[in-house]
């Protein structure tokens, strides 16, 4: 410590305890100052020393050096996006002209367009974009190469952006490479997940693996792997499922029966059809209808096929077996019995329970013909509607918009329709909204969807609707205005990357 440094230290100590307890140290002569006038009181000498110390510490010390470093960013390989695109991204990040939900979507769209054009985000926008993406997984997932080398480099420097980097990485995939080799040795949870992923990528390979390892894996893995067979289910899976019906584990047998319910063309489906036929009879001469009996308690073969075994004392009611048989038999069995078309057959079913079970079968197997007939028949289950071909569903929705049917939740349906809506549907909704219904619940439910649901080709209709909705329907006005803004923004976005 030099004399001056020692002195600075002493001044600090003296000031801390006070000049009443400790004499202020004399100012070092080397400073060449006239601050030590002995005639001054100790307080004044200490204050003068403090003044010198302050000036000295600020002006008298050299700039320190540091051994801190930074690795520099690698050079960019992509071209930066154009000025127009940069301006749009800046707007989205700092002054979004659209609502919050639409904004996230537009940022993702911006990134996709940039990715498609092989361009990157300008450096100056990286911090704002990373801040934005840190709390929004879909945005973080869409960053990709648009971040550029600089963005990837910057990302690693700020812990607050760690969420971005983990979302950016592709999800661990069990199906990649030789997962089949490791599968028999995997832990239960891991094995179940790996099989589900593997089944989606290569159904046949997954099935063959399960067949060959059937006896070596645990019951839990067997049942869960069987459940995964629902994806890409085909008649090729039938032998394995049939074998599983004889499995020693009850849960495996139950899952196998459940999966086979979705494979009505199977031998088990035929056996169930044979059980159903004697129970259903055509009655009536003028209005022909179906009468459905309950079955007798199941025999060994039926129990093997998945019917609940009768218990001593209070067993399951016979309707449970009926439901199980209806759920497993092919739908064609009903046509064979009535000898009529699907809609006509549906009309002949008077039993509400049977109809309900049938609807479950239709939804479960995704049978479009039956779904259409059920909708026609007035079954309000919205799941049926999503089985219909797009055009048919749109046409139905449009007709319901014009003449609202009783017992249907039109609002709920519109919320579920995939967006953007087909133009015809969009037009019908606008027509309905600009009428007297502008303040009704339909308008309230649908308004928030409009910006993302209405297609840009409808801009003329949207403008027309905007001028006709009642003045007090502010939520609708706002939604329609925003829709127009969003469309304009989308257009400029696409143009910016052209």
């Amino acid at each position: 410590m030099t004399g001056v440094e020692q002195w600075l230290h002493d001044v600090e100590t003296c000031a801390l305890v006070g000049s009443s307890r400790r004499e202020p140290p004399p100012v070092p002569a080397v400073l060449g100052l006239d601050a030590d006038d002995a005639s001054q009181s100790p307080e004044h000498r200490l204050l003068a020393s403090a003044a010198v110390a302050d000036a000295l510490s600020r002006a008298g010390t050299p700039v320190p050096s540091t051994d801190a470093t930074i690795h520099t960013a690698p050079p960019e390989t992509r071209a930066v996006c154009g000025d127009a695109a940069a301006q749009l991204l800046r707007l989205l990040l700092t002054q979004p002209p659209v609502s919050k939900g639409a904004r996230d979507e537009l940022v993702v769209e911006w990134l996709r367009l940039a990715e498609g054009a092989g361009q990157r985000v300008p450096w100056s926008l990286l911090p704002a974009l990373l801040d934005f993406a840190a709390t929004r997984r879909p945005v973080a997932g869409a960053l990709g190469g648009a971040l550029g080398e600089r963005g990837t480099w910057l990302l690693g420097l700020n812990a607050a952006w760690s969420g971005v980097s983990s979302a950016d990485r592709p999800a661990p995939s069990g199906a990649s490479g030789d997962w089949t080799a490791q599968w028999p040795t995997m832990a239960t949870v891991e094995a179940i997940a790996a099989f589900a992923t593997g089944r989606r990528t290569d159904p046949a390979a997954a099935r063959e693996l399960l067949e060959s390892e059937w006896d070596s894996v645990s019951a839990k893995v067997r049942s869960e792997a069987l459940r995964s067979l629902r994806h890409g289910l085909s008649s090729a899976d039938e032998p394995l499922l049939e074998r599983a019906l004889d499995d020693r584990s009850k849960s495996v047998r139950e899952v196998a029966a459940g999966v086979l319910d979705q494979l009505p063309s199977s031998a088990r489906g035929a056996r169930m059809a044979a059980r159903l036929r004697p129970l259903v009879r055509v009655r009536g001469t003028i209005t022909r209808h179906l009468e459905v009996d309950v079955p007798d308690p199941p025999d060994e073969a039926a129990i093997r096929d998945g019917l609940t075994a009768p218990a001593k004392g209070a067993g399951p009611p016979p309707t449970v077996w009926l439901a199980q048989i209806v759920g497993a038999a092919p739908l064609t069995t009903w046509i064979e019995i009535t000898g009529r078309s699907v809609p006509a057959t549906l009309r002949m079913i008077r039993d509400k329970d049977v109809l309900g079970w049938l609807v479950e079968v239709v939804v479960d197997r995704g049978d479009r013909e039956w779904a259409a007939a059920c909708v026609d028949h007035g079954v309000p289950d919205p799941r049926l509607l999503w089985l219909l071909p797009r055009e048919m569903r749109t046409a139905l929705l449009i007709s319901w918009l014009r003449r609202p049917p009783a017992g249907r939740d039109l609002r709920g349906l519109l919320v579920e329709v995939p967006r953007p809506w087909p133009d015809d549907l969009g037009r019908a909704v606008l027509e309905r909204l600009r009428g007297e219904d502008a303040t009704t619940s339909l308008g309230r439910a649908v308004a928030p969807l409009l910006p993302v649901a209405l297609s840009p080709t409808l801009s003329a209709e949207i403008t027309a609707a905007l001028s006709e909705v009642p003045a007090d329907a502010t939520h609708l006005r706002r939604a329609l205005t925003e829709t127009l803004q969003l469309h304009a923004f989308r257009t400029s976005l696409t143009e910016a990357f052209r």
Partner: protein
Amino acid sequence: MTRWSPDQVTEAAPDAASLAAGRKLAVPGPWRETGCNDVLVWGQCQGSGKTPYQVSVDLTGPAYRCSCPSRKFPCKHALALLMLWSEGGLDESGQVATFAEEWASQRAERAAAPARAAAEGPADPAARAKRVDQRLARMDAGVEDFRLWLADLVRGGLAAARAQPYSFWDSAAARLVDAQVPALAERVREAGSQVHAREHWAAYLLAEVGRWWTITCAWQARERLDAAETAEVRIAVGWPQSSEEVRDGDVRPGPWTVLGAHRSDDGRLQQQRTWLAHDDGEVVAVLDFAGYGQALAVPQLSGARLDVELARYPGHPPRRALFRNPPAGAESVTGLPGRTSLAAAHGQAAASLGRAPWRDLHPAPLADVRIVGEGDRWLAQDTSGSLPIAAGTSVWTLLALSGGEPVDVFGELESGAFRPLAVWLDERVVAL
């Protein structure tokens, strides 16, 4: 008046929410009867209510008026109107709307009133001298009182002072305000809160106390100081120069280059500090203040070369200055004027301490400086040394733009730290 750039409109916004709201309204749809002339922009905006809001902006202030109930200044309607204007979307030929004209004339009257009072008022030199004497007497007494308080402080020791409640500092500051030395009062108040917030409070408080002592000594010795030194002491104690006097005083014409600007808002007062350099290297700072609910002057874009006359306050360089007329003709430059090393900037700051030891803010146009560090500890580094980045400053934009390579940065040195304000790239200048 030249049309504002979109960035200038952005900077005028009180917060991000207002800006976003304004952006949504910046479409022709809700607007009626819009127009603009050299000093006014006006329009009516249809809000959710029946009567449209009447919006007027006086560009010279700038000042904003809107009949909406918002307490933000400017409100979203005024911002939206400015955005439309900035994009060239307003008619420039029309008749000024009645509501805008009325407001403008009321403003003109109010602005003229004090000037008129000053012009017509009793220009009695004797009365004026008497007022000055009274103020000086009060200040002298206040400073003497403060010196006694300081002596008591160091006699008892700083450790004992730290044990005092905030009111101890606050009442000392209040007495200084009464004695019309508000700048000194502000320093004492700040120390009162910092002494509990800081880790190295003892060194901090010792330095502050030393600085206060220097100011009181300088004040008492002011008879022996020259004009520039006296002016510095006046700034230190907070005896303001009237801007009217300055405006017609030491004027220097442009071009002035905007080096960078800093904005702060402590909840009560918004401040804007714009650093400008002349071609010969003279650096000045233009300070703007606005209270709560008022709008700060429009910021100047960093890198802009302004054709404007600046009136300089007396004092040592870098001096405070004010715009005599609204800046115009903003061509931009990209070469940072006066670029130098960290050590040299530090040296210049030290030299200016020799003239005004209580100063703690110095301009630093740094050449080829690199941001190094990690986590939340970052430093500015060049071949001559390094300084920490000032607390509360985000380094991310600077890092994104530099990629860890050396770049030219304009900033401020304050309390041994560097606060970057604008990065001067080869092709453009980006405010941080």
